[in-house]
């Protein structure tokens, strides 16, 4: 018997809803079977917590007297450049922005001790942040300099807006070269010294709804410790990635653009992080509830680590040079066991995404729904699917002709 989201929301209101995590559902369906479990379980919660580039926040810091127009000028937040090209007092701070005087990779590998992700974490923690603005001055916005402390509680709006999060699967990074390399998937020791992966596997939102049957534009989610929404498909959303029979993609596939009120969020689920030799970013916590509307949707949520595979990619050559070669495929049960075998060699594995924090998010979301404080939404529009998504393309570089 199929259910509707309205019916589930009624059960949430009356306190009768049955919610389990994407980990717990595996055993439940194993014991009870799909049909019975689909009747009993209303919602399966998912979670993921890991470094997610393409994250950032925008805010309006309020007009000064006399007025200043940051647009066209320069703005720094704790010495990290923010994007000003929007208007007078709206700024966007991206997670990967590096501090103005950062030596970057001049002495390789650079530290990247502080960047945009850290600014967002400090804002969310309620700490004062230094704002410096240099403007060119106009008749209506005469002021040219501003140095002040700002605090999230005084900002007019502060919004987390991430254009690509929650990647549906990811590569396993290794290093075939004979020197250590420093990547966004961590430090990789030479000659297959270690292997780093970055997905919550069986808990990961889009791996539990591989064809985006319930997750879509407008879906209410847990974002950074508060409520947020799926705003759009993320950039590089690629539902065309090859898939296993259970629907899960074997390569990085779908992505989400997400949005939410930064003022409500918590530094426990938004953390500035640094990858030596690479840069800074933001670790973001996301949880998505999946309404169990029918057996098919339930079936997808029962996927387990052993049934999700990822591609092992050499980050010393294949990845940076855009070569399609893959060294093999491994599943998440193997990855989480602590070692995998590549080219006959036993290689130690590390997660970059935090499974234990993902589990915490799935459980937190479960509790919020059970308490009746988090209700489900019907998606407003579908994410692009295999049937209608454009092909994900690399850049076609074309020569720039000098004009006479």
């Amino acid at each position: 018997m199929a259910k509707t989201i309205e019916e589930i929301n009624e059960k949430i209101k009356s306190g009768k809803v049955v919610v389990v995590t994407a980990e717990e559902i595996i055993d439940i369906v194993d014991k009870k079977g799909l049909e019975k479990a689909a009747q009993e379980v209303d919602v399966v919660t998912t979670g993921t917590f890991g470094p997610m580039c393409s994250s950032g926040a925008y805010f309006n810091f309020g007009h000064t007297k006399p007025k200043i127009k940051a647009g066209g000028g320069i703005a720094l937040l704790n010495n990290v450049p923010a994007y000003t090209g929007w208007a007078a007092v709206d700024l966007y701070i991206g997670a990967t922005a590096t501090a103005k005087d950062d030596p970057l990779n001049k002495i390789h590998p650079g530290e990247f001790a502080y960047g945009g992700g850290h600014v967002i974490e400090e804002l969310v923690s309620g700490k004062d942040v230094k704002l410096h603005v240099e403007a060119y001055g106009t008749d209506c916005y005469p002021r040219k300099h501003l140095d002040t402390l700002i605090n999230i509680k005084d900002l007019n709006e502060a919004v987390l807006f991430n254009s690509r999060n929650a990647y549906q699967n990811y590569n396993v990074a290794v290093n075939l070269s004979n020197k250590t390399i420093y990547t966004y998937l961590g430090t990789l020791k030479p000659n297959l010294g270690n292997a780093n992966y970055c997905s919550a596997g069986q808990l990961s939102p889009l791996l539990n709804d591989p064809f985006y049957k319930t997750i879509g534009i407008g879906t209410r989610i847990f974002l950074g410790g508060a409520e947020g929404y799926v705003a759009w498909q993320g950039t590089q959303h690629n539902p065309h990635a090859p898939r296993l029979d259970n629907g899960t993609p074997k390569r990085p596939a779908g992505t989400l653009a997400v949005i939410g009120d930064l003022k409500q969020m918590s530094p426990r689920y938004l953390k500035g992080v640094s990858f030596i030799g690479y840069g800074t970013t933001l670790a973001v916590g996301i949880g998505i509830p999946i309404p169990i509307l029918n057996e098919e949707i339930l079936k997808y949520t029962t996927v387990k680590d052993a049934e999700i595979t990822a591609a092992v990619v050499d980050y010393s050559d294949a990845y940076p040079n855009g070569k399609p070669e893959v060294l093999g495929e491994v599943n998440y049960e193997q990855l989480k066991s602590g070692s995998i075998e590549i080219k006959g060699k036993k290689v130690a594995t590390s997660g970059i995404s935090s499974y234990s924090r993902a589990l915490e998010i799935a459980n937190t979301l479960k509790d919020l729904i059970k308490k009746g404080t988090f209700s489900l939404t019907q998606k407003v529009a579908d994410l692009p699917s295999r049937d209608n998504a454009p092909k994900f393309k690399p850049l076609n570089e074309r020569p720039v002709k000098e004009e006479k």
Partner: protein
Amino acid sequence: MTSRKIVINFPKDLIDRPIVYKLIKEYDLEFNILKASITPDSEGIMVLELMGDKKKIDDGIKYLKDQGVKIESLSKDIKVNWDKCIQCGACVSICPTEALYISDRKTMKVDFDAEKCIACELCIRPCPPRAIEVHYTT
């Protein structure tokens, strides 16, 4: 060439004498200052890493003692700041001694066994939120 880390306590009356200068000049030692401070009552504390010939390091240390400087050898303590740690596990495959390890494969919880740690510091910079700290103790 060996290296040794020491903590030097200068009493008040020695603070303006060029002791470290002499150490380098006459004992042919290289050094790194890991930490230096002068306490409110003008006692100086300096954490030094001395590098050079083993015999010369011993002689240099003897010279310091003869000058009335108190010397302790230093040990490093590695600590994980659990408030900062995001439980990612990035350190686990970096640590050569399994001092950083997954204590529960079901929840993938990361733990630290100080007994196994050799203070090599390999884990410090790869930790994304920089949650692993070096504390110097004597």
